[in-house]
C-alpha cells in the first residue's frame, strides 16, 4: 500500500508568531519552523499501516526551502522518501490554491491512501483534507481516531461531538487524523542518520502540472484584509450561587460542550 502523508511546517507555537506587514502572510523568519503537531500523528499512522500492510510511505510538503527540516524529521521517523513542493509562485496561496497544488502533486506521486493532520496550528482552516478529496475525486474520512485497512477498503472511527461515527470507504481515499489516534515515535539516532540519504524530490509549479493561475497570493479567493494582535483574555463568567448555582454551572459547561 502506498501512503502519502501531507506534512506542514508551522511556526513553533512556543514562540511569538507574527504576520508580515507588507503582504499580510505569515512571517516565517520570525519563528522557528517545526513540524505541525498533528502531522506527527499522521506520519506515525502511516508508519503503523506500513508496518502492518507493507508498501511505501512518501512525505509531501508544500513550503519554502526551510521546510526541508520538517521533511527530514518525518523521514527520520521512518518515512521512505519525500516530495517537496517549493516555488516562489506558491507563496501566499490560500486553502483553495494549496489544495489545487497539492492535489496535482498527489496525482503525480500516485497513492492508495493520503493521510493528513485534521488541522494545522498556524492557519487552522481544517479544510485541506476535504478539499483534496474533492479535487482527487476520492472519499474523505476526516477526524479519524482509529484507522483500519482491509482489502481495498478503509474503516475509521470519526470523532464527533457526541462520540464517534464508524465510516467506511473504498481505497484510494483521504484521511485526516486527530491526536487520540496514536503516540508518535521519537526518531532514533540511526533514523536521523538514514534520513540524510533518503530521496527528496523537489517539484516546482511546472513540474507538478500546477495551473499557475490558481495559486499564489494574487490568485487567492480569500484575502487577509486586516489583522490585529489577539486581545488579552476576557474575564471569566462568574456564577452566583442563589440556590441554583449547581444547575447554572452545569448549564454553562453544557453550552461550551464540556458535559
Amino acid at each position, binding site marked *: 500500500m502506498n501512503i502519502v502523508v501531507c506534512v506542514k511546517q508551522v511556526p513553533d507555537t512556543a514562540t511569538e508568531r507574527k504576520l508580515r506587514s507588507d503582504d499580510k502572510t505569515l512571517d516565517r523568519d520570525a519563528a522557528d519552523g517545526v513540524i505541525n503537531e498533528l502531522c506527527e500523528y499522521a506520519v506515525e499512522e502511516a508508519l503503523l499501516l506500513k508496518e502492518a500492510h507493507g508498501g511505501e510511505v512518501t512525505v509531501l510538503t508544500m513550503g519554502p526551502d526551510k521546510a526541508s527540516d520538517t521533511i527530514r524529521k518525518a523521514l527520520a521517523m521512518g518515512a521512505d522518501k519525500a516530495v517537496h513542493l517549493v516555488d516562489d509562485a506558491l507563496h501566499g496561496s490560500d486553502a483553495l490554491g494549496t489544495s489545487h497544488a497539492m492535489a496535482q502533486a498527489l496525482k503525480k506521486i500516485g497513492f492508495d491512501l493520503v493521510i493528513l493532520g485534521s488541522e494545522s496550528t498556524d492557519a487552522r482552516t481544517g479544510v485541506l483534507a476535504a478539499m483534496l478529496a474533492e479535487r482527487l475525486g476520492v472519499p474523505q474520512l476526516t477526524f479519524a481516531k482509529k484507522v483500519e485497512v482491509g482489502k481495498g477498503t478503509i474503516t475509521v472511527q470519526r470523532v464527533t461531538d457526541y462520540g464517534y461515527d464508524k465510516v467506511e470507504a473504498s481505497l484510494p481515499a483521504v484521511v485526516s487524523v486527530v491526536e487520540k489516534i496514536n503516540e508518535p*515515535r*521519537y*526518531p*532514533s*539516532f*540511526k*533514523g*536521523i*542518520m538514514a534520513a540524510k540519504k533518503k530521496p527528496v524530490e523537489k517539484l516546482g509549479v511546472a513540474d507538478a502540472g500546477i495551473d499557475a493561475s490558481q495559486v499564489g497570493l494574487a490568485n487567492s479567493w480569500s484575502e487577509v484584509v486586516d489583522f490585529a494582535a489577539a486581545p488579552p483574555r476576557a474575564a471569566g463568567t462568574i456564577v452566583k450561587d442563589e440556590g441554583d448555582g449547581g444547575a447554572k454551572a452545569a448549564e454553562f459547561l453544557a453550552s461550551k460542550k464540556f458535559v
Partner: protein
Amino acid sequence: MSVERVLPRPEAHDLMDLVRDLVGKEVAPRASADESAGRFPREVFTTLGRAGLLGLPYPEEHGGAAQPYEVYLQVIEELAAGWLAVGLGLSVHTLSCFPVAAYGSAAQRAELLPDMLGGELLGAYCLSEPHSGSDAAALTTRAVRGEDGYTVDGVKAWITHGGVADFYTLMARTSDDGARGISCFHVPAATPGLSSAAPEKKMGMRSSPTAQVRFDGARLAPEALLGAEGEGFRIAMAALDGGRLGIAACAVGVAQAALDAATAYAKERRQFGSRLVDFQGLSFLLADMATQLAAARALYLDAARARDAGRPYGTQAAMAKLFATDMCMKVTTDAVQVLGGYGYVEDFPVERYMREAKVLQIVEGTNQVQRLVIGRALAR
C-alpha cells in the same frame, strides 16, 4: 539546559537535538515526582533505547552508534542535568557493556552485543562487596570452574540496577592470587541462583535502585567468561576508566542544572529593592560556580579526546572525576544558598541536586581513591 557545545561532527548536533528533545519531554518532567516516590523509570530507558542511546560509544557492526567518547559523554551530561538517575543509569549500562565489547571473543561480541546495545536490555556492573569497596581486589565472591562451566557463590553490594537489570557484568575470584585471581563474567538476570535484596534507602538518587546481588550456586556456562581467567581486575579497572568519565559528565550535568536554577531565581527574586543577581556578593558566587563548572567540563572533554585518540587517559579520567564531582558538590550547595530558604525545600529542585551530588564523590572510586590513582601516576 542550553550549553553551547563544540562537537566534532555535524551528526553529533542532530544527536544532541534528539537528546534535548527527549530530556525535555520524557526525562526532566517526571524527575522530581519519581524521586520523591523512589520510583525506577524503566520505561524511560526503553524510550532512550529505542532512540538508539544505549550503545552510543560501541561499533555499528554490533548495533552501537560508533560515537566518540567526546560526544557520548555530552549526551550523559544532558541526561544527568534532566535527571541524575537516568544519566548515571545510562553511564552504568554503558560501563557494563565494556568488558564484552573490549575483551569478549568475536563469537561473544556477535552473540551478546546486539541485544546489550539494542535498547531493550539494561545492564549492571558487579564489583563492590560489603567488605570490599575501595579495596576492590579484596573481593571474595567465588567462581569455581567445574566440567561444564562455573559455579558462583557470594554477595555483591551497592549494585546500581540490582534487581532490575537484564544482565550483570560480574567480577569474581577464580583463584587466591590477589588481584590476579579475579575473572570477569557475563551473567543473564534469569540465571538460577541469582537474586537481589531490597534496594537501599538512599539520601538521593532514589529512583536509581542500588541493591545487594546474591549468587547462591549460580551456574554459568564456560562461554560466560570474558577475557582470560585472572584478567578480571584489569578489565574492571579499564572499564572504570571510562566509567569515571561518565560520572564526571553526570557531575557537570547536575551542576549545570543547579547553576541554571540558581541564576534564574537570582534574576527574579528581589530583596532590599534589587534583584539578587545585582548584589555583587551574590553575583560573585554565581560567577565562581559558572567558572568551576566550565573548567570541569573542559577537563572531562580533554580526557575524552585523549581516549578517542587512543592515548592513555586513566590519570586524566581520575582527575576529571575528582574535580567535577567536588565541583558539583560545591556548586549545588551554593545553589541552595542562592535560593535561601526556598533552596532547602522540595518546591525547587536545588535541594535534590545537592543530595544527588554527594553520591558522585563516592561511586566508581571515592575521591580519595582518585587521588590515590593520580598520586601513583606522579610517583611512577
